[in-house]
């Protein structure tokens, strides 16, 4: 059994004009020590996915269906009391903005001791010793002085290191990191990412990394999900998806990167923009932007406009695309004919 198992997760936001489907049909597993990336543009639902894992979505959002199983226990039906024992303890989170996560009126040490004492019955002295050790692990210079400093006295990169130390405090099984380096500069980002990667490997901690940056995902994670308009459209081993993306959206996203184009020539853009969740086009949500809805004979594939695509396997990946499904079907028919 996998450490974390998400089945048919369905999240909605109850608005006056009706429910908005923020997430539909999300399925994935995470093994102990595995690193999973969730990639997508803003509004794709990747942060909602992360928050719903710990049942942290605020009103009017709610989990409308599906299961989140962690070590065999279903998190989404668990009591608030039970969830508190998991949050921060077994599964911890790292958020995008380190200044928002740290309490500005408490010293670093006080905040770290507070979360240790919330989960364990230990003395303040012992808690401070653990906090100090974690600060050393995240390579903060002169950790003793940092314990008594306040968040505003530290730089952005230093604060994000503190956040990682806090996330590691109770030796969790899983860390969920929501855009942990987006607010940081490139050189600091590279350091924080390699620190996070090393710590996860060293302590065998599972990592769910949410980001819009394909470069970061490809360097850190082993498997990835690509999300579009509240659905997963492609999932599988990171290397396979990056090297040979099957879904037209994933292809477009990778090809749109400046590093994929010849300098001086035009970038391969995807036309249009992502639809809003309250006004999704029928059929495949990507079809108005897709270059492949036409068959080789020039006629539009009707399924793309009418039917939501199901998943088909392609190598070790799963892809939700009618075009890929049809190509596979054609290939199968040809093979049958020849044999």
């Amino acid at each position, binding site marked *: 059994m996998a450490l974390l198992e998400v089945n048919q997760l369905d999240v909605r936001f109850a608005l006056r004009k009706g429910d908005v489907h923020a997430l539909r049909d999300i399925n994935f597993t995470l093994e102990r020590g595995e690193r999973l990336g969730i990639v997508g543009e803003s509004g794709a639902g990747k942060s909602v996915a992360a928050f719903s894992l710990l049942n942290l979505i605020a009103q009017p959002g709610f989990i409308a269906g599906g299961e989140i199983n962690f070590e065999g226990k279903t998190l989404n039906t668990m009591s608030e009391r039970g969830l508190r024992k998991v949050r921060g303890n077994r599964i911890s989170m790292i958020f995008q903005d380190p200044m928002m996560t740290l309490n500005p009126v408490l010293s670093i040490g006080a905040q770290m001791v507070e979360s240790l004492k919330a989960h364990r019955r230990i003395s303040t002295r012992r808690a401070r010793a653990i906090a100090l050790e974690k600060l050393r692990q995240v390579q903060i210079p002169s950790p003793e002085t940092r314990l008594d400093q306040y968040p505003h006295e530290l730089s952005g990169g230093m604060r994000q290191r503190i956040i990682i130390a806090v996330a590691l405090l109770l030796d969790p099984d899983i860390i969920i990191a929501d855009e942990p380096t987006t607010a940081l500069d490139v050189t600091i980002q590279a350091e924080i990412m390699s620190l996070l990667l090393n710590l996860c490997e060293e302590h065998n901690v599972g990592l769910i990394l949410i980001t819009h940056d394909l470069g970061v995902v*490809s360097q850190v994670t082993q498997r990835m999900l690509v999300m579009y308009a509240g659905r997963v459209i492609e999932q599988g081993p990171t*290397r396979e998806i990056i090297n040979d993306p099957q879904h037209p959206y994933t292809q477009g*996203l990778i090809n749109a990167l400046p*590093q994929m184009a010849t300098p*001086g020539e035009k970038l391969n853009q995807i036309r249009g923009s*992502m639809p809003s969740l309250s006004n999704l086009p029928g059929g495949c949500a990507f079809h108005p932007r897709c270059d492949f809805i036409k068959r080789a004979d020039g006629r539009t594939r009707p399924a793309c406009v009418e039917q939501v695509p199901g998943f088909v396997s392609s190598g070790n990946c799963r892809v939700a695309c009618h075009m890929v499904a049809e190509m596979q079907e054609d290939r199968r028919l040809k093979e049958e004919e020849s044999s």
Partner: protein
Amino acid sequence: MNAPAQKIPATDTTDTLLEIRDLEKRFSLTGDFLEQLKFKGGKLVRHQEHVHAINGVSLDIRRGEALCVVGESGCGKSTVARTVMGLLSPSAGEIRYDGTRIDNMSTRQLLSYRRRMQMIFQNPYASLNPRMTIQQTLEEPVRLHHPDWNRQQVVDQVERVMASVGIDPDWGKRFGHEFSGGQRQRIAIARALAVDPEFIVADEPISALDVSIQAQVLNLLTDAQQERGLTYLFITHDLAVVEHFGTRVAVMYLGTVCEVAETATLFANPRHPYTQALLSAIPRLDDDGPDHIRLDGEVPTPVNLPTGCVFHGRCPYANQRCREEVPTLQTLNDGVRVACHAVEEGRLPG
């Protein structure tokens, strides 16, 4: 300014559109004169503190090129852009546009230059007036710079510019908040192009946008450059964009330029230790790229600048000379200009 201008070898000035010479910009942290007075040891003393945002930047922008300025947050790249546009006045130094000094001009004198140079800002949510329709937004600069035009001429000009950046004429009646980030940035670009400028300063124009939209906006800027023969000063922190977009690149660190080179040369053969570290930190899709060059510590505060080379505290090759003497930009034999004692002395490995 006491630094002699002849230190910088004079380039061919015929194709230079904009010259920045020894530009400095300080921002006071201590308020006005009265707020600076303090009692100390029974005496009244004046205490002043400054953020040194730019310290002696010299750059040439050639006609028709896209000069990219890259650096991390706080390195002064946006201050350079704003000073060039006349939105900030320099503390020292000169800015020459087409041979004429513009940094000390009055607003009235600047007006004709403002038509020739336009700016695109980072945040398209803040740069469009929420109370104006798109039509009004686009007409405003045309009316300002062509007061003698009649209504029809203005409308025709706006129509032309809308068509050239791919804006649906129906958008004209709508307001800024009705559009997505990418669409707003398209409108902001249209506004900049509405007065037919020759020089555009773009301050992080795509960093607030999603990946698939970034490509659309970058392509639009490239098209506009080719159609209109524009010159760009492009400010960004994203090196992948620079590699694609820039003709030449200037790398900035803590208010100084540490390296200026042709884009291909810079990416193939970065000279300055900071440029090398910056390039190695780009997350690439292929996993087997070279390892990151790790920099110790963090960017020092621009309030108390380090002595000597501003990068010496984090540089693995720093020696006594780097700690004492400020390096100046030296031209190497392949045209690359680097401000580094170690490069000059050939101390760098490789």
